[in-house]
């Protein structure tokens, strides 16, 4: 799928060196460490972390560490999913939250809860993954039929499509008196993350590695079917691999954490603006940046109304919305859209 808008050429100052990555990892590690000291259980503060007593360790192991891991993995995977999607479609305004992927996953959870309520989280997740793949496939089909392929029209169609899926979900949920559940799935929050409730998230690590291995080929298939085929790539198969990687990441995060708006859109865009757009090099940075962004949002959410919490989706929605508007206006000013 080619579009008239190519991603902006990489600024020459870009380029990722190993040193940058290590700095990123270090910053994230310090931030993560500090975040372990925040929580409603005031008996565990930053000072108690080294070394924790047995009761302090219990709080850390059952609540704080799972939460930190979930934050990092959710942020990293949604950002990477956005990056891969933007490469596959060669369009900067495509991401799981502007292509119906997230909404389709929510619909999947609703269906799973309605028909197989007693089953485990894993079954719900599988159903959500399937609906996410189907939903994203329909979006890609629509993209091919659309008259205008500019980034902004595509983003609009994607948002509307997500809106229609959300309306169907609400419609069904309303009939079954399940609107309150919907609220939980559509608002990303880490407050319910405890040991034993987040482990499925580790799937995204495996999928992320697959995404990394295929990173360069995703860029090539973004240049169009004939171009990719000429280079000897199996366009269809690669497209489906990308689709599955993205859908699994989005669906797993939605099932465990809930939806985090605009994350997959703004993080890859900002990283690409700063670092250039060599996917293989940018992908690890995107993962780190996404993890860092969600960590910052989560910490802010826990501090603003301490000891109460503001869900991460709310904070990310405000910041993400502002950044998204800035990106739109920026692209409108620069490129002839």
């Amino acid at each position, binding site marked *: 799928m080619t579009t008239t808008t190519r991603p902006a050429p990489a600024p020459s100052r870009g380029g990722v060196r190993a040193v940058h990555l290590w700095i990123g990892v270090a910053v994230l590690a310090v931030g993560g460490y500090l975040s372990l000291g925040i929580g409603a259980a005031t008996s565990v503060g930053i000072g108690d972390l080294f070394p924790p007593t047995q009761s302090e360790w219990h709080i850390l192991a059952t609540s704080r560490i799972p939460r930190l891991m979930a934050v990092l993995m959710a942020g990293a995977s949604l950002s990477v999913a956005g990056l891969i999607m933007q490469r596959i479609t060669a369009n900067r305004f495509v991401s799981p939250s502007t292509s119906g992927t997230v909404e389709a996953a929510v619909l999947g959870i609703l269906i799973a809860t309605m028909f197989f309520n007693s089953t485990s989280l894993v079954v719900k997740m599988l159903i959500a993954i399937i609906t996410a793949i189907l939903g994203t496939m329909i979006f890609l089909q629509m993209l091919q039929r659309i008259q205008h392929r500019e980034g902004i029209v595509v983003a609009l169609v994607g948002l509307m499509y997500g809106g229609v899926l959300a309306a169907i979900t609400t419609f069904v949920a309303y009939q079954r008196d399940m609107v309150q559940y919907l609220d939980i799935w559509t608002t990303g929050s880490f407050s319910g993350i405890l040991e034993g409730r987040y482990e499925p998230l580790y799937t995204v690590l495996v999928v992320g590695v697959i995404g990394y291995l295929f990173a360069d080929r995703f860029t090539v298939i973004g240049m169009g079917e004939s171009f990719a085929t000429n280079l000897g790539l199996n366009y269809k198969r690669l497209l489906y691999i990308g689709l599955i990687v993205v859908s699994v990441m989005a669906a797993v995060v939605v099932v465990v954490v809930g939806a985090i708006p605009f994350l997959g859109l703004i993080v890859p865009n900002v990283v690409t603006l700063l670092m250039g757009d060599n996917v293989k090099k940018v992908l690890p940075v995107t993962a780190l940046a996404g993890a860092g962004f969600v960590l910052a949002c989560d910490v802010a959410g826990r501090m603003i109304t301490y000891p109460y919490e503001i869900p991460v989706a709310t904070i990310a*929605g405000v910041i993400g919305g502002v950044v998204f508007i800035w990106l739109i206006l920026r692209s409108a000013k620069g490129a002839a859209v």
Partner: protein
Amino acid sequence: MTTLISPSPTRSHTSPEEARRRRRIRVTLGILAILCAVGIAAYLVYDVRGSWEYAMDLRGRQVGSLVVVGAAVGASSLVFQTIAGSRILTPSVMGFDALYLLVQTIIVFFFGGTAFMLMGVGERFVINTVVLAVFGMLLFRWLFGRNSRNLLVLVLVGIVIGSLFGSLTSLASRVLSPNDFLTLQDVMFASFNTVDANLLWVAGIVCLIGLAALVPLLRYLDVVDLGFDNAVALGAPYHRVVTATLAVVTVLVAVSTALVGPMLFLGLIVANLARQILPTHRHTELVLGSVLVGVLCTVGGQFVVGHLMDNGTTLSVVVNLVGGIYFILLLMRTVKL
């Protein structure tokens, strides 16, 4: 859309074809008016059980607010499309009613809920509308000035503003004191199921004033529809008409949002339907038609949802579902947006 200015009826050279067209418009408007009357009557008397007095009072208020909303949305969307020069733009799609809600939040946030509630419904409404008018004018001056040739940018920004507002409301709900937030919710979503009689009176009168203010603008809008260059060449005070129309649109949007909250696609469906069934470019007829279609959609829609489906869903979900699909089709089919 090629536009032929039809000869005015006072000049008597009407061809038979033209006469037929005029009759068709009159008949269509007549049928719409009859359908509206039937719809309203049906809504009032269908399946009344128990006290008639109680039913009439409650249903009268409901139908009153539906009529006000339908008329306000129909008129404002149609003239907004004309001044924006696009068939896919409506005030809601541009985030105008999200803006109204944002203004409410800001007022409650800074002045507190108690001070806000002490004011009467009328005063509150006037303050809201004035603040919204100023805000809206500034925003649209800025946006139209910057991207006057790229309306899609405006649409996308509007939609993101809408979603951004959702996050801000959620943030406010957690930062504001519970009392202040309750106040805010009351003013934001006076659900039409239990419309306050005072608010309905104020809204109805303001809506009438807004519609009346539109009347002298209508014939200028016929010319504005031809685009800036043509309109100025024909001697129309383009900027004055656009500014005045925007002011009226702001007031009408405030009326409908205050009554039932945002309905993203209602105006889009209504205005486009009116343009499709009325073969004319005259705004006197188009606006009248759009008002009637609007009333028919709200009253008819709520009749189906409330009485026939036994409140199995909400009107806004149905509107989002139908409108979203319609909007995607418009985006995909239309060559010139």
